[in-house]
């Protein structure tokens, strides 16, 4: 973990309201899939934006983000050459055990981006099936990355791209067809994660979810971004997570 002065190489729209920003830093950064960075957008915005790391290629780090509020709007308007502070890598990230050969990725909306980093880290080594759901055709992105999975299913809520269903339904359909993974890795909106946790419990599948929460420090000191654990304690999403075994957290 280090605060990098990062230079924007590219900042482009990849889907409706979704942008991809690539930074160059002065050294190779070791990043585990599923980790994130805290991007300082500056000015009157005192909090950094916690955003999932999507791709790492040596000194080039790519984050993808949805324009949601003033901070991400400001980020969207920044051009190549501008420099920003990025604290990274943060959080625990996804781990796939050696014994787990068949990996299912279940992602919804902007939740697909940390899963793209999983795909990039483990492709060739694991059998990866990807189930990604988008709101509609205009929100679909990262198809060339997704096509590198051993199996890639892309669906949309309104049926304007792929089948009309959500990512969990797409995953369940394949499960019913006999494609049973050794581990499920997921990221997406809370209702999606809740539905997936139920499926995983019913089917006896190991499932890890990456959570999102409003953050303060991003390094585990301020106790702002907590989630409730099933054992009654709180965990820090930024430091103990953002990836948790689904059975250990209350969703």
């Amino acid at each position, binding site marked *: *973990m*280090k*605060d990098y002065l990062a230079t924007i190489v590219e900042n482009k729209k990849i889907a409706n309201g979704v942008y991809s920003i690539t930074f160059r830093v002065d050294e190779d950064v070791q990043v585990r899939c599923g980790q994130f960075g805290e991007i*300082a957008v500056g000015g*009157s*915005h*005192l*909090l*950094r934006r916690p955003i999932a790391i999507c791709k790492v290629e040596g000194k080039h780090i790519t984050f993808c983000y949805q324009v949601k509020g003033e*901070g991400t709007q400001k980020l969207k308007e920044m051009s190549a050459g501008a420099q920003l*502070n990025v*604290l990274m890598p943060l959080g625990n990230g996804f781990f796939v055990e050696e014994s787990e050969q068949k990996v299912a990725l279940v992602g919804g909306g902007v939740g697909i981006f940390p899963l793209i980093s999983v795909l990039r880290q483990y492709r060739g080594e694991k059998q990866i099936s990807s189930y990604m759901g988008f709101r509609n055709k205009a929100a679909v992105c990262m198809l060339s990355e997704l096509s590198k999975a051993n199996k890639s299913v892309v669906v949309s809520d309104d049926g304007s791209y792929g089948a009309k269903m959500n990512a969990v339904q797409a995953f369940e359909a394949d499960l019913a067809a006999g494609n049973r993974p050794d581990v499920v890795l997921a990221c997406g909106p809370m209702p999606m994660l809740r539905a997936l946790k139920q499926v995983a419990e019913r089917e006896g599948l190991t499932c890890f979810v990456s959570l999102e*929460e*409003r*953050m*303060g*420090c*991003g*390094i*585990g*000191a*301020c*106790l*702002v*971004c*907590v*989630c409730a654990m099933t054992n009654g*304690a*709180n965990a820090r999403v930024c*430091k103990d997570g953002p990836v948790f075994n689904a059975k250990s957290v209350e969703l």
Partner: protein
Amino acid sequence: MANLSVNLCGITLKNPVIGASGTVGFGREFNELYDIGTVGGISTKGLTNEPRLGNPTPRIAESRGVILNAVGLQNPGVEHFIEHDLAWLKSTGTAVIANVAGKTLDDYRAICERLDGLVDMVELNISCPNVKSGGMAFGIKPQSVEEVAKIAKSALTKTPLMVKLSPNVESIATNAKAAENGGVDAISLINTLTGMAIDIERRRPIIANNTGGVSGAGIKPIAVRMVYEAAQAVKIPVVGMGGITCAEDAIEFLMAGATAVQVGTANFTDPYAMPKIIKGLNEWCDRHGVENVSELTGVLTLNQR
């Protein structure tokens, strides 16, 4: 190289910069970024006798130039702190200031008795705006400020006591004086100002607790004014805080009458804020021919009106 050390009611701080309670935990996380022992002091996350889970999330929101938080005193309890964090934090060389909170006067007495002689200083949190009972209830009325100060002071025979004042009061000078009358060794201010931020799409407050404590760069002028008024009202040392982002901000507080300062929200904007402020203080003092940073305390001269 200026001498940055200051004497805060008998405790020597290597520099006047203290990590504000709730923003730096017990120092471990920031120590992964830099040696936390280089900071003058660390005011711990607010400690209670029993562990607390705190408020539901979201616990934080942002508004231009400020943030709002309502963590609600989540902490592992004083025993856990003593067992797991205290020895380590002391070993770093920073001054350990235990920030403590309670629901009742007995809570404050018990936790002060437990920490007496173990830490460098106790900071009494009677101004947390984010918990339903206790906390700020003690921090509003001057009589209750004096009462809780007296009880805490009587429980501390070896360790100096500082009380952290709320800005959400009628007169900061009156409450500062009340704390002094209660026998405390120092006062710190300001805690956060109570505020609200609304998600207009959902027509609901962003923070689960509805209201939160406002902190950050935008509150600095209010804090400087209050530190000045409090420092004028008492003879004991004052620790100033509220929106300090750089060395120049810290110097404003020193000039207004503070002996030391605390840095909070700036740690989120820039995790290296405290070492940068310490370096900046040194450079400013050198540029201005100030040999001891302590010379700056209270040098403010008001304009003639």
